[in-house]
């Protein structure tokens, strides 16, 4: 009888173990669409066999995961987030600068109108056309300066939004380390991987699992953001020198500027703000400054319709910085096209040597420190942006391919296959049913035995 009772216990243990398998398979199917979920498995452990008792028991639940793969995925998703953010920012600015008439075409139109007016230098209609083309050029340069400034401030706003989010994720990652240390639950490990992934997407960097099983997250310049259960804070503050936000890691009393060493979305926006868009802004300022001075220099030495000298075409900015936004048409020229200096000094009003000198600026190297034509310098600003956009697009394609390949590898290891889980479910169900039958049989034997006593 005691043996029958042991068998009954073995049967009950078997049912419990198979039910654990059913629970794990059901949980896997239930989480088949859960982002970052790693399929789990329960290990069934055979107990010491007869004559003592034997049977089976459910061991710990574990997940199918690879830290090496997770690490590669973090790097890849950080790169993809960076290249995608970069492409988006550059594409927006590119669209803004190429919508409507571009600055190089505005310059060409101005030169074209000057050539036409030079053929009829006393014709008011032709002179007015030159003044209008000058106004259009100024409006275009001012507009593009505003577009670039808006794009840089837009990136700065995104940086301001993403910094607290990254800081929050770092804290959550530290909390997840705490949770993992307590339970080592597969779901907690998945959660920690996901948080690290999200943090990589925002700031780049890298993470590793220390010997104590806790994750350590480090930025590209070595600044530690998460060390076990402790998280540093990522903060942003306005830099009075640049007018834009700088980003720092604050850990207790120590503050470290990480503005130039972030990756991910923040890194992309910082690079766009401080490099790509700034280069375009600086080039536009240089162009506006050079154009104003080149036109004014030639214009002032030639004669207006009344023979007077010294007129300007533009109100020339005093310094290169901010020249594009500050550029204005000369007020006297704006008011009266008779002030356009198309005649040479000391000549009659029908002379056009002044106009021809202005037209000659079209092919003179007066831009970029006397190395380029004005039109080439203007084309180059958008051309360089286009090149950066094409590179970013290429980076997105490459990073997408890498991320997709790694997603396939992860899915191969950790992904839930519902067909497979349904098979597992059936396997555990059948085993559980068989054990139920076994228990029922033992129960019948025991009942018979008891009745026979």
């Amino acid at each position, binding site marked *: 009888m005691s043996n029958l009772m042991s068998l009954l216990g073995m049967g009950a243990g078997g049912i419990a173990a198979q039910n654990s398998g059913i629970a794990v398979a059901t949980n896997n199917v239930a989480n088949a669409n859960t982002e970052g979920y790693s399929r789990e498995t329960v290990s069934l452990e055979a107990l010491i066999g007869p004559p003592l008792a034997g049977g089976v028991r459910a061991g710990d639940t574990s997940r199918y995961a690879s830290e090496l793969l997770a690490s590669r995925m973090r790097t890849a998703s950080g790169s993809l987030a960076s290249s995608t953010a970069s492409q988006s920012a550059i594409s927006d600015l590119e669209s803004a600068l190429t919508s409507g008439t571009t600055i190089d075409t505005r310059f060409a139109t101005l030169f074209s109108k000057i050539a036409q007016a030079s053929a009829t230098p006393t014709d008011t209609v032709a002179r007015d056309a030159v003044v209008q083309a000058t106004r259009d050029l100024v409006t275009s340069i001012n507009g593009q300066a505003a577009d670039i400034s808006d794009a840089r401030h837009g990136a700065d706003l995104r940086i301001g939004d993403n910094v607290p989010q990254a800081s929050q994720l770092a804290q959550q990652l530290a909390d997840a380390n705490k949770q993992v240390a307590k339970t080592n639950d597969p779901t907690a490990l998945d959660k920690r991987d996901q948080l690290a992934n999200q943090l990589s997407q925002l700031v780049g960097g890298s993470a590793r699992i220390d010997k104590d099983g806790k994750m350590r997250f480090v930025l590209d310049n070595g600044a530690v953001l998460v060390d076990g259960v402790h998280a540093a804070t990522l903060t942003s503050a306005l830099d009075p020198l640049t007018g834009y936000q700088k980003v720092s890691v604050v850990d207790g009393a120590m503050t470290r500027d990480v503005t130039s060493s972030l990756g991910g979305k923040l890194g992309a926006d910082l690079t766009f703000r401080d490099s790509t868009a700034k280069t375009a802004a600086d080039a536009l300022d240089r162009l506006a400054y050079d154009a104003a001075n080149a036109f004014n220099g030639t214009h002032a030495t030639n004669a207006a319709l009344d023979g007077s000298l010294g007129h300007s075409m533009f109100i020339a900015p005093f310094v290169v910085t901010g020249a594009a936004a500050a550029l204005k048409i000369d007020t006297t020229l704006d008011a009266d096209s008779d002030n356009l200096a198309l005649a040479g000094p000391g000549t009659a009003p029908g002379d056009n040597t002044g106009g021809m000198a202005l037209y000659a600026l079209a092919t003179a190297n007066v831009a970029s420190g006397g190395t380029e034509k004005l039109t080439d310098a203007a084309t180059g600003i958008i051309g360089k*942006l286009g090149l950066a956009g094409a590179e970013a697009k290429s980076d997105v394609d490459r990073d997408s391919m890498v991320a997709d390949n790694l997603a396939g590898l992860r899915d191969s290891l950790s992904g839930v296959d519902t067909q497979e889980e349904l098979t597992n479910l059936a396997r555990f169900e059948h085993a559980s049913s068989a054990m139920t039958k076994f228990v029922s049989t033992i129960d019948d034997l025991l009942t018979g035995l008891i009745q026979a006593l």
Partner: protein
Amino acid sequence: MRVTDHRIVDLSAAATARNQSKVAELSAEVSSGLRVTKPSDDPSAWLTAQRGRVMAALNDGSNQAIQIGHERMVSTDGAISTLSSIVSQARELAVEGANDTQTATSRAAIGAEMQSLFETAVSTANTRDPSGEYLLAGTQSLTQPFDPATGVYSGNATARGVSTDTVSSTLGTVPGSKLTATSGVDILPMLKALADALNTNDTTAIRASLTDLDTAVKQLAQTRGETGGHMAVLESAKTAHDQLSIRISESISTAVEADTVAAASDLAKASTALSVSQSVTAHVLQLLDPTK
């Protein structure tokens, strides 16, 4: 390699999305006829096209200037031709007036005719272009160059240039000084003097004018020849600009325009691929449906 059912669905959905994107891209290319719409599509091609557009605008400015210069030269040639005709008629009247058979009265009648010719000549020499500038005034083009009463020239001897490109130019006007003593004889005052001589029955002066009239004929012929030379240069420049304009258009077209036949063919292929990937996705979903 273990491939989950979710991965199969993801892959087929991704393939459908890629094909959809390709179809959208090719549709835009076929409908717009443009392969490159923004710099990042193909930075090198965009730069080529943009430099072409800039060059086209500059070329257009030169071309317009050349056109204006050419039209002015045509008008100038017409005016000088008219003046040549007037001088020839004046010579005939001078010969007629110099004839001893003429009386003071008949000379006065010829003189009246000569006065009329003089006035026509002054009017012709004071011709304006459509913008209101005097054609034969040199660069003093806002001031009437020939005095209506005396025919004396008050313009200057400066000819205006026309930019044939940003670094070269050719002459685009003929100054009225070509009709003055600096180039031979002072033609209009001479015509006035002839009219006066006829009116005053001054046969000596009438006969003396014949030599000046011969010089004037040659002077006008030479001026007309120079005008024709300038016109030819301008025409040649215009032809060069027109050809350049065509080459620029071709260059822009080659750089950014789509090969519509190839694009349409690619679109058909991409549409087929999209259709197939949609069918595959539907089939995969049906195959992996756990309720079946």
